[in-house]
């Protein structure tokens, strides 16, 4: 059953990705509508599949790479749907949804055996920590996707290449706004995730902070976004500089997520 939902989700995200990409090349209100519908249906299937897995396994599926990638992708799509509805920025889907699709496909290639959950992962603090961490990661992913589009759009404006793609992409201001929103959501989430993570660490390992690789890199991520947010609020960091830093932040997030296995879990 979970598997069925999963395949269904991958198929729907695939179709939505294709639709969003075609929307970038052609103007078709109907296709735009369908891209949104496909994505929303895919998101619903994804959510059901996740819930189904959670109920079946009696834990929140965030305990290995496969589950985490799937959840990461779910959070990205959820976040994107929110911003698409709020700002009417369909064209950003062409940049963000493929990322979510790739994560989901990567997740499906990893086949992890169902296993007995180690007691340290059954903690409520771990659950809380992981959920918040992925929510913040999703915010940072969207921020980075928007930053890429921002830089493209800025390039078009500076070089005066105002073609069809320029017309399709959102305004600089809108993207700046979305990216700022993402930060103001993502940063507090990350902060609480790190705190709850250290509480869990205390429970599991007997120490709030053990300076393992994961914790160290999480702190680095936190610092990067703290600098970005601070620069933005106090001296008005915007535009190109903010976009580049946001992309760097995302690369570090991805590196931490994929490269730094948790010394406690894995």
């Amino acid at each position, binding site marked *: 059953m979970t598997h069925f939902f999963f395949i269904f989700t991958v198929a729907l995200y695939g179709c939505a990705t294709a639709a969003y990409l075609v929307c970038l090349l052609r*103007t*078709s*209100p109907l296709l735009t509508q369908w891209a949104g519908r496909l994505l929303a249906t895919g998101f619903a299937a994804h959510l059901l599949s996740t819930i189904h897995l959670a109920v079946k396994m009696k834990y929140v599926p965030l305990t290995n790479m496969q589950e985490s990638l799937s959840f990461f992708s779910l959070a990205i799509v959820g976040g994107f749907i929110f911003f698409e509805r709020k700002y009417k920025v369909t064209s950003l889907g062409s940049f963000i949804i493929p990322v979510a699709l790739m994560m989901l496909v990567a997740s499906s290639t990893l086949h992890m055996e169902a296993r007995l959950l180690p007691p340290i992962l059954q903690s409520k603090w771990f659950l809380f920590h992981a959920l918040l961490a992925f929510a913040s990661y999703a915010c940072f992913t969207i921020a980075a996707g928007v930053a890429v589009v921002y830089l493209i*759009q800025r390039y078009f*404006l*500076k070089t*005066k290449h*105002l073609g069809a793609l*320029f*017309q399709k992409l959102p*305004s*600089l*201001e*809108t993207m700046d*706004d979305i990216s700022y929103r993402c930060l103001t959501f993502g940063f507090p989430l990350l902060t609480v995730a790190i705190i709850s993570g250290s509480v869990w660490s205390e429970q599991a390992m007997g120490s709030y902070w053990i300076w393992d690789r994961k914790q160290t890199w999480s702190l680095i991520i936190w610092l990067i976004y703290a600098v970005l947010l601070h620069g933005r609020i106090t*001296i*008005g*960091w*915007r*535009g*190109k*500089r903010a976009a580049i830093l946001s992309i760097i932040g995302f690369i570090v997030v991805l590196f931490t997520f994929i490269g730094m296995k948790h010394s406690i879990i894995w």
Partner: protein
Amino acid sequence: MNIIVVGLSHKTATVEIREKVAFSPNQIEKPLGELIRLEGIIEGVIVSTCNRVEIYATTRDIAGGIARLKRFMADYHHLACDTLEPHLYSYHAEAAIRHVFRVASSLDSMVVGEPQILGQIKTSYGYAAEFKSSGIILNRFLHKAFSVAKRVRTETKIASSAVSVAFAAVELAKKILGDLSDKTVLLIGAGEMCELAAKHFLNSGAKGVMVTNRTFERAERLAEDFGGEAIQFEALFEHLHRADIVLSSTGAPHCIIGPKDAEDAIKKRRSKPIFFIDIAVPRDIDPKVDKIENAYLFTVDHLQEIVQANLAQRGLEAEKAEEIIDQEIGQFHKWLSTLEVTPTIVALRTRFDEIRRAELDKTIAGWKELPPDAEKRLEALTLAMMNKLLHAPTYVLKQAGQGGRVDLYVDALRQLFELEALQRDDEELELEE
């Protein structure tokens, strides 16, 4: 029934001629009334804009109808028919349908894709509907034209791009600054283009205008016009940071805004972007300003380029629009041809006969001991009933002969007895304005 069109437009007549034959919307009742009293003209709509004057009508006699409309146009405005004749075009049948669909879709406009024409036709149709000069055919026809125009608008990009420098500036500003409702425009110097662009910005929702000029009185006067604020030219750089959009067109021989000024202003506004538009020749704003982060400088040449590209784009989109119109003409033509009397009577008879046969067969099949001549008698009975029932409508239809009523009857019959499944997608389309 035939649709005919007679008229002239910017393509066939100069403005001097066009204004002579224009119909004033305030007194449109009179010409509309006279129009439908013309011999052979059944329904009529008059469209009169500054670029075109056209009459749409229905008639049974195409050649006569067109001649009468031409004469009407000349006579009504006390012009000699001969002087008007060379400027007039006329269409009938499919060509007439195509023409009106193209006009409504703004394919025949001076600036292809301009949006006003559809509204103008809707208004003209509104008068015709109000004064009852349009009937079943023109009603359906114009509704169809509106839905075609809507399709063209949503399915092609014909009207989505700016084709004037001022509009191009507004579109560009939206791409940089997003929503303009909290944005301020700074006008440096004065000039027609500059003022026009400022007007467009205000119409697009910009919050306010600041005006500066070497002659302060001029700045004050302009500021008053726009409901804005006048600024001393010497104090320009104290206010530059307050502007989101800077429109410059002074006659200064050298640049008045350099990269340093722009950088300072942007720093003061905490990196919020400024959109600089330099309309002046020689330039007012140093090209190096564009190198400053969060400053976007466009000159009149850049804007001109955008306009040219958009115009070319519209040409391509117009081809797509023609295809849409081709499809829709076929549909409408089909409906029009069903409005003929004889085929309708035949269809009605066929429908009645089908029902009669079906019921007759059912009755006979379920009858166990059928008397010998019962079948023949039943046949005769039902046939007589059918003929009696059909007699009156057939008679009335044939007697209605010429005139708007016959179309009404035919259309009603076709609908009431479902004589033909018609495309009615446009039926629901409401007059938006």
